[in-house]
């Protein structure tokens, strides 16, 4: 699997909520195996792009292709085998009345997969959760443990693409480090492609190969992680975000 073919391809994407257009003419390509970040302020449309890819924001024009196949405007069973999403808030994204076992078995059941019992145990192991968590409820888990469950659920169907919507912004820094390490390891082991939304530029520097800076629903700039690390960003807005995210270092440069 190389970086040459485009795994997620968005072209002239416009997304609407009713009469309001929230994403304007977004064109970007994510290569297979790449980790790509969408960054920007609240309301810049970055999460909406993930939702449109998943079929959760059906009102769009333009083109969305994943793995060479055009996406429909709604949820799609075959597509969900390919691509899964992890949400920001692990307190909101797990069913409170379902055990971890039921949560992880559900996608397997829907897709009629066999060996569910063994798979659930395997999934827990892959995200670093002890088997004793299997029959607990979400409220008996900490935020970091819940996010591990959410990641395990996303991996249940062995997708090749993960859409990550601020996967660590609800967590403490020490837990964030654990989850970021986990995501990085899983990507390496399974050759996953990540499209990740975040507002945290240092997280991008740690996790991603490239990033798109968004503002008011448009892409301002697409840059490499190297350019981000050295602050070599082209547009004034991206440089401003860099400066605000990195006050210590940039303050030293000024006399």
């Amino acid at each position, binding site marked *: 699997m190389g970086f040459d073919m485009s795994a997620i391809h968005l072209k002239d994407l416009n997304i609407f909520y009713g009469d309001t257009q929230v994403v304007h003419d977004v064109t970007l390509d994510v290569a297979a195996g790449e980790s790509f970040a969408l960054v920007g302020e609240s309301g810049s449309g970055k999460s909406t792009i993930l939702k449109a890819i998943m079929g959760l924001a059906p009102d769009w024009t333009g083109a969305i292709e994943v793995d060479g196949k055009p996406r429909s405007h709604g949820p799609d069973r075959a597509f969900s085998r390919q691509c899964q999403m992890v949400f920001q808030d692990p307190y909101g994204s797990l069913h409170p009345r379902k055990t971890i076992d039921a949560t992880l078995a559900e996608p397997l059941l829907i897709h009629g997969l066999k060996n569910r019992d063994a798979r659930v145990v395997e999934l827990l192991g892959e995200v670093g959760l002890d088997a004793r968590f299997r029959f607990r409820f979400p409220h008996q888990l900490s935020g970091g443990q819940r996010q591990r469950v959410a990641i395990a659920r996303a991996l249940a169907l062995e997708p090749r693409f993960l859409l990550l919507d601020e996967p660590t912004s609800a967590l403490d820094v020490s837990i964030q*480090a654990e989850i*970021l390490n986990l995501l990085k390891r899983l990507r390496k082991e399974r050759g996953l492609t990540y499209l990740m939304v975040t507002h945290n530029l240092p997280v991008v520097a740690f996790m991603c190969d490239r990033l798109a800076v968004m503002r008011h629903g448009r892409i301002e700039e697409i840059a490499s992680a190297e350019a981000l690390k050295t602050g070599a960003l082209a547009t004034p807005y991206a440089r401003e975000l860099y400066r605000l995210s990195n006050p210590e270092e940039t303050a030293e440069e000024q006399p």
Partner: protein
Amino acid sequence: MSLLDIQNLTVTFPTPRGPVNVVDGVSLTLGQERLGIVGESGSGKSMTGRAILGLVRPPGVVKADRMAFEGQELQGLSDRAMRKIRGARISMVMQDPKFSLNPVMTVGRQIEEALRTHESLPRRALKARVAEMLEAVRIHDPERVMDLYPHEVSGGMGQRIMIAMMLIPRPRILIADEPTSALDVSVQGQVLDLIDELVRENGMGLMLVSHDLHLVGRYCDRVMVMNAGRVVEVLDAKNLHAAQHPYTKGLLAAVPRMNETRAELPTLDRSQWAST
């Protein structure tokens, strides 16, 4: 004399497995300075702030050898006496303006109410003070903003309105509990600069509660690091990077950096010091 003097503060909650001290013997003093309290979820940092204001609800129990504000013991004060201190003398900015502003009351009315509760002023003077306060938090057209409802303002403006509301009775101490974690990076700096400026200008004491060590290091004079209800370490903010305790060091190292080169982030080995 320090503004706030707390000795051996304990906050206890009953659990099925017996009482748990969520704050466990914390002592601190606060003068006209900026003190940061840092820790992870469950470290007791927010409970410490709440205990000072008498906002720990039953079945939580607050005990301290001493909890004095400007020399006056706060424990055992009647609700009525406490209300004269809370808001007027010590006030608190909470995390998310979306949940702490009243959604069915205009911004102007809410700020006015905060003032009216503690001072009786003629109507015109009230309005002038509200407008003046809104200008102080850099809202440039106070007349227009006063008539808006909370859903009509952005998160950053909402938080500035909260700050205006908390500072209008001219308190001596401001407790800011994660005042910017619900805000975008681009607005965070503005809100903290504003708090910083108002605290300095008015010679107040600031207690900034946050999980973000770097942020607290930037905006405070001293930093108190908490874990599992106890104070782990107290440092001068400028010496933050010279922290000695493994917990503080671990927290600092776990944050990704902009010029990140590490393949893996170091994680905390909790078995060393965490009791749970």
